[in-house]
């Protein structure tokens, strides 16, 4: 075992792994993290704790991960390259390991201009760092863990033992380069990969075929990203505006149909769309897990953590394996 994390053990057991996501609040309210952790606990092997996602200030991923951990939920601490240089990153990694955290997901992070897609003020005037990029951060984690050395070369008497993850956008532009992109992350040392949300399963399967031909699925554990759809509007937005995500027209039509069935009743409109969204999610999970080379699913119910229990149960992924 590289880290001994539950996630690593479940993957090693050969059973499909399930990760979820916990978005820390935009305030100092630690109870919010506890509440969300309780909703997810037992229904996933580990939950990603996002790192100021969409470039807005939230409880730091390391602090929220520690709170989740203390409350019985195994965290995957996310670490973006946007806000910290290699000194701060390694310091945080040592701190996180000292707090008992065992999984870390490396990612570039949304540009500071993003500000929750313009919905919030955010900090578009912030200076970004990008001292390292995702591949390089993965390499630094590996060097710390396996060689017991800091990036600069100084020795680490006690090395942080992380199960190292990286994000991957399988259908992003330029699509033919994306397998090479994944290969680089794997060569740098990524033990597991969580993908961007997938709706177009046919296209994802085409990309996975290339990945299998490259043998990458054996060198890393690929967890397919599933973003729980809540409404037709959300699906349309994801399709038109979110990079690397395309939503088949039939799926949007299906959601529209659910919406139409509610007539003029706004509340019912929401409920029926959510129900349809949950059904779609379960189908996507099954299709993802049937795809050769996929070792698990990363289910993101954004600001809807309470949905995870039902989804995991309906998908036949409950109870989670005891490892």
């Amino acid at each position, binding site marked *: 075992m590289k880290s001994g994390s539950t996630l690593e053990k479940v993957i090693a057991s050969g059973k499909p792994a399930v990760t979820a996501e916990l978005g820390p609040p935009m305030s100092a309210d630690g109870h919010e993290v506890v509440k969300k952790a309780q909703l997810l606990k037992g229904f996933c092997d580990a939950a990603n704790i996002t790192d100021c996602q969409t470039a807005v200030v939230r409880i730091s991923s390391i602090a929220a991960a520690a709170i989740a951990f203390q409350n019985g939920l195994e965290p995957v601490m996310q670490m973006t390259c946007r806000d910290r240089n290699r000194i701060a990153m390694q310091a945080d990694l040592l701190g996180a390991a000292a707090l008992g955290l065992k999984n870390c997901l490396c990612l570039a992070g949304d540009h500071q201009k993003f500000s929750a897609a313009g919905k919030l003020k955010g900090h578009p005037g912030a200076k970004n760092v*990008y001292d390292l990029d995702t591949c390089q951060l993965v390499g630094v984690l590996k060097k710390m863990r396996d060689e017991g050395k800091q990036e600069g070369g100084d020795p680490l008497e006690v090395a942080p033992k992380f199960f190292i993850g990286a994000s991957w956008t399988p259908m992003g*532009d330029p699509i033919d380069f994306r397998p090479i992109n994944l290969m680089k992350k794997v060569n740098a040392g990524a033990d597991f990969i969580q993908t961007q949300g997938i709706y177009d399963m046919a296209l994802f399967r085409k990309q996975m075929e290339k990945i299998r031909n490259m043998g990458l699925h054996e060198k890393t554990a690929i967890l397919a990203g599933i973003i729980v759809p809540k409404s037709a509007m959300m699906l349309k937005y994801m399709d038109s505006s979110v*990079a690397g995500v395309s939503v088949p027209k039939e799926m949007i039509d299906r959601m529209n149909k659910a919406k139409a069935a509610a007539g003029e009743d706004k509340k019912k409109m929401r409920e029926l769309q959510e129900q349809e969204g949950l059904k779609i999610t379960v189908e996507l999970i099954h299709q993802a897990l049937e795809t050769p080379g996929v070792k698990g699913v990363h289910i993101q119910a954004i600001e809807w953590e309470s949905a995870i229990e039902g989804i995991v149960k309906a998908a036949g992924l409950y109870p989670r394996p005891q490892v």
Partner: protein
Amino acid sequence: MIVGSQKPIDEIWNMVKDKKKVLVFGCNTCVAICHAGGEKEAETIASLLRMKASQEGKQMEVSHLGVMRHCEPEYFDPVMNDVTKFDIVVSTACGVGVNFLSDRTGTVPVVPGINTSFYGAVEAPGKFKELCAGCGDCILHLTGGICPIARCAKTLMNGPCGGTNKGKCEVSNEIDCAWYLIVERMTKLGQLDKLAQVQPPRNWATSRDGGPRRISLEHIAEYEAKEEAKAGK
């Protein structure tokens, strides 16, 4: 070349409004090409300041001047006597020129008339584009001549982020994604294998992060010293 754009006239006015004798001093190289701070633009700024002064009922004498380059003493040495007669100099050279001139004007303040933005090129008439960030350790041979430091919003070294959308950068759909272009170019050059190599963490000490930089060419200095000695004999 260095590309900049003129500061709003009110901002310049606020810098000079309490002075009696103002010189707007243009530079006729890079910033003239980008229509920001050549002698012609210096003249325009000077007349705008005169108008502003008369509107505000202020006694102000505003002149303008231009030299070929603000970044080499030999170009402005001949006019330095005139320059230092003013109460304040608005330099419309790039930041380099403002810094360099400031060092040489004694008690006369030099203030910037333009915002210096980047190292770029003339894409089309009136359109300028950032292409290099002066990082001090060029890697263009690895990226098909397209700079990921200057042209990728995240200065990524190992390929595109997840934000590339239809060839555009996640920062704005008006900006090309540098990595999209790099992949396209390297594919065309048959060098995609180069992009498959993991680029290790960079040594940013060669860029501004290492503190202000200097390059000294010993052989040139030695040569000049010898020439001077010869001339002295």
